[in-house]
């Protein structure tokens, strides 16, 4: 599998297709790979890659940040994965709460929270991420950690996205996309989410899909496989990452998720509230559910949330409706050091990636 051969073949197929093809990488790490290896610069002109909603930090709703910041400001110790700390809520981010005296810890692994708990017995772990990080949070809850779960399920978001793709756009702002037919011609499905949930679940989506690994060659190969499907007018699920991803997924991890969590509704930045797309802590573990323990406080915080008007267009970026550079704030006011939206915070966010690996620059 040599990359030059793949690139040659991609060129050949895309000539055959002729029209513009839009492929969406659903996972943030894929966006990162695309940028890191300058893949957009070697693709034929009619092949466009757009980033999707697969960066867990990016799809976190401001109101959820407001709640966790509220808990931190009320004196409760909070632990969260590093990236989450800088995501702006309507009032402030967790980092800014820490600057003002709140006890906020960045962790890399949920096991670190167990250690922190020895010193700060009230510590709440801010559980965030897709099916990949949910088992770790479930494991921690079983070990006695208190958590606030914002875990999300990937397939419902994909369903919502496909629906909005068919109806062009459900968002209040009109889509600038003026192409023909489906807005997205094919999807590069996430690698690690798929390692947990398997590939069968994607079959219900009628679109060309390839589950891919995270190396440059993986992504190139996925693009090649998608283009081949498009030529053959197929809409099926293929697995490029078969060295890791199994058809049935990881049963142990799925069982653990099931034991601790139940499915509930969740709010997604950009996509709005999606039914049955979140993971809530089961009643059995309610004494470790921050939402239950602090329900009065959370209720109070929720009633005080005022949506701050912002020109930030993360929501549209996440759906592949616009590119980061189409946002007025991009690079002018919104930078990785002064992020206005979540897509600029995470290193996997479409805006952050575009900021760091600005492709236009390479052509100058």
């Amino acid at each position, binding site marked *: 599998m040599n990359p*030059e051969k793949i690139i040659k073949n991609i060129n050949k197929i895309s000539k055959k297709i002729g029209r513009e093809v839009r492929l969406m990488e659903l996972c943030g790490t894929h966006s990162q790979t695309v940028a890191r*290896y300058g*893949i957009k*610069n*070697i693709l034929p002109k009619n092949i466009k890659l757009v980033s999707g909603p697969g960066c867990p930090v990016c799809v976190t709703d401001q109101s959820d940040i407001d709640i966790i910041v509220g808990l931190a400001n009320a004196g409760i110790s909070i632990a969260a994965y590093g*990236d*989450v700390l800088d995501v702006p809520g309507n009032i402030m981010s967790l980092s800014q709460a820490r600057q003002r005296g709140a006890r906020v810890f*960045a962790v890399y692994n949920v096991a670190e929270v167990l250690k922190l708990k020895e010193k700060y017995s009230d510590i709440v772990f801010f559980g965030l991420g897709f099916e990949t990080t949910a088992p770790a949070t479930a494991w921690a809850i079983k070990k006695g950690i208190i958590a606030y779960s914002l875990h999300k399920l990937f397939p419902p978001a994909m369903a919502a996205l496909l629906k909005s793709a068919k109806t062009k756009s459900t968002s209040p702002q009109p889509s600038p996309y003026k192409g023909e037919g489906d807005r997205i011609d094919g999807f590069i499905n996430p690698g690690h989410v798929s390692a947990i949930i398997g590939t069968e679940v994607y079959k219900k989506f009628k679109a060309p899909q390839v589950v891919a690994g995270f190396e440059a060659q993986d992504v190139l190969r996925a693009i090649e496989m998608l283009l081949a499907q498009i030529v053959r007018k197929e809409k099926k699920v293929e697995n490029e990452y078969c060295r890791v991803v199994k058809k049935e997924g990881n049963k142990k991890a799925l069982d653990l998720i099931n034991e601790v969590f139940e499915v509930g509704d969740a709010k997604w930045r950009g996509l709005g509230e999606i039914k049955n797309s979140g993971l809530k802590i089961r009643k059995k573990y309610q004494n470790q559910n921050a939402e239950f323990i602090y329900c009065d406080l959370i209720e109070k915080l929720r009633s005080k949330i005022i949506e701050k008007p912002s020109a930030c267009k993360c929501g549209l970026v996440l759906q592949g409706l616009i590119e980061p550079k189409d946002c007025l704030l991009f690079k002018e006011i919104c930078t*990785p*050091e002064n992020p206005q939206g979540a897509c600029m915070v995470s290193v996997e966010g479409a805006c952050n990636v575009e900021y760091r690996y600005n492709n236009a620059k390479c052509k100058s």
Partner: protein
Amino acid sequence: MWNIGIIMQNANLKMKNNNLKLKNKFIELEHGGGGKKSEELIAEIRKIIGGGKNNNWKNMRDDGATLDLTPTLSLSRRGGKYGRDAKFCVSTGALKCNKLVFTTDAFIVDPLFFPGGDIGKIAMCGTINDLSVMGAKPIGISLSLVIEEGFPMADLKKIMQSIGKVSKETGVPIVTGDTKVMERGKIDKIEITTSGVGLAENIISNGGAKAGDYIIVSGDLGEHTVAILSSRFNYKSKIKSDCRSLTKEIQSVAKYLNSCKDPTRGGLAAILNEIAEKSNTKIILDEKILPFKKETIAVSELLGIDIFSLASEGRFAASVSSENVKKVLKILKKYNSEAKIIGRVEKGKGVFLQTNLGSIRPIEALNGKLIPRIC
């Protein structure tokens, strides 16, 4: 370190969004990260302090500020045997120098002791290297300590021993200093500030890269950060901090270097962008010959940290003309067999990586806040 982008003399450095500086009511970690936010803060501080214009100091945005001693010294010898305009040279051992270089740096490290060094060794090497990359030979260092009440005397002794060791090995004396102790909890263990003065015959600027030059490094990069992060996250590896003095290495090739910098905070990405910007040139690195060990790559992958921003504390990168590059590498390889060419300088702007796929992508200088990324 004030040297990173100290004043906005350079009009094109001015941020478009000036009003943002005032938006921060509190100091954030990024303000100390060595990135754009640090630059903004330093510019703001400069503005408040004022001055800094009507003096003869130069290179105030570099690793060390420089002062040409010629006018001062020749004045005192007016009419003497050197004549009014003759250069007066101060003799400092092997070097004849008339330019004073001055630098200062505050050191905080967590953990204090790590594979390959400790906070004392870094405090010495950091300042010595800041002088060295300017082409100077360090002649004296000041040492200030702020220590937390209850700090173990044995640890302090260890730190002082390694400071003494570097001083002895490099022949750079500690000539003055200060010690303060703070109440327990008011400071985290220990903070060390060193300032240093050195003398140089020729200042190596970081704005001297020319199209056609090669970019070289004095060894593999990033191992200091790898050692620190490994200690912090309980990783085990053979990698030790690359912390060491660069004086001899740089002095041995100084006359061939068009520009030179040590990739400390902000890493290779930060210094190459600085060199490219100040030299008005473009730098292109080749992914096939990058100066990173496999363990370093693994750390950067595991923690999601950009490999080009990993810090080294005893390496330098330089641009050298094509006729001198072989000579320089031959000399540098005596110090470190991994010294090598990693890229080239061309006409244009920016720093780029030529990937193994044959594509080109930019290497941006980012903030130095090395926070592991998970999502």
